[in-house]
């Protein structure tokens, strides 16, 4: 599984790195950035999924994409 933040949609609410700091961090502007793109454990997938469900802008997608 992979996780992606749409930078055009992210408004820097910071929910992703507050809720799932293993997968996301803040960039220098406070927007979310992905630390771990390849989610190779159930914990990481769950963490990315949690952030995706709680992103106020719907900017985070978790997918099977290669």
């Amino acid at each position, binding site marked *: 599984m992979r996780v992606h933040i749409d930078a055009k949609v992210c*408004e820097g*609410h910071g*929910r992703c790195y*507050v809720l799932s700091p293993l997968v996301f961090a803040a960039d220098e502007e406070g927007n979310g950035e992905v630390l771990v793109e390849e989610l190779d454990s159930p914990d990481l997938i769950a963490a990315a999924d949690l952030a995706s*469900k*709680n*992103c*106020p*802008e*719907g900017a985070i997608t978790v997918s099977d994409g290669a």
Partner: protein
Amino acid sequence: MDRLVDGSGGVDAWMFDADNHYYEAEDAFTRHGDAAVKGYVRWVSNGHRRYIMFGPRMATSLPNPTFDPIAKPGVFHDRLIELESGNGNRALSRAAKQRYGELEPIAPAYRDRDVRLRMMDEQGVDRCLLFPTLGVGVEGLMSHDVEMAYKVFHAFNLWLDDDWGYAYKNRIHAAPHIPLLDPQLAARELDAVLGRGAALIALRPGPANGRSPADPVWDPFWARIDESGVPVAYHASAGPDDYDVAFRHLWERQQVTDVRYQATLAAALRDSRGILDTVLALILGNLFGRFPNVRVSSVELGCAWVPYCLHVLDHAGTLLDRNIVAFGSAVDDRPSDIFKARVSVSPFPEEDVLALIDLIGVDRVLFGSDWPHPEGNKTPRDYVACLQGAAPEVVRKVMRENALALFGVA
């Protein structure tokens, strides 16, 4: 009562009624809907009556959604006073005539804004907040089909703008309704109605699709409310919702042995639950700390829940600590003070309005007649009886100025 001469309705029209209703046109949900909406919202007939369906579910919150014929305004009011006073311990006949009184053909003032304005002139009502009748009972019919719910309410809000306008002649403030089911779709619909001049937003009380309405996932919605300064009204709702699901889980998981008892219990348990939960969730979730301009009103939900809400708010935290932290920030102000600063309440005309004024302050109490619904006043000015013995400035605030202040008119 001295009369205000500066109201746009003229010398005699001075009241601001925070709870008025229309009866929807039959194409309210479909006139501006695309083919999908027109296929989803359908009128059906059983040969005797016509009903409206939302997808596979029928709207059952009203006995006659065509509204023609319709009960007269205020026909339940005397009975509600009797019950509120502790009397009335007898069952009414189930015959419709005794319950609803003589029905009459639908009046033009319920559907035509210019006729309504003339009616308001006669009633002495300068301005009103205007809410749906059918529209407050259908969100829950679509909660499993979130995208369709937004399409349907987008169409409904366009119809509302057509037939009533969002601020017609600055006298009729009709409230677009926005479901809190999806954060991005809610923000998009809010942008759409604000772009067309919405001056008031109506929400359904209760949890927002499985989470708190104060959860930061809704911050884009509240940020827009905050920036626009538009007041939000939580209005009484009907139809299926998460409280039904909770009731079935809590009280009907084993075998149901008495259906009538279950129905009575369900109605009693849910009574003010939605608004109580909502206000607790917003204040304890620090929504008002994050958004200093957000003001919410409770409309047609009475005020019996308010003392208990204030009690719970000030006992929140642990047993001994009022240490309330939400989403990374402390709620420093006394929670009941936040209520009194940001939440307005429109009590039922049969309730003790003066006691509510003592409790939350004279600035937060809004007169609402519910006209022309049968549970409300026969005519809006009858509400003044709730304020018997109050000083003239108290009457002015409750009957007019408090609602005006929500719209930034001092």
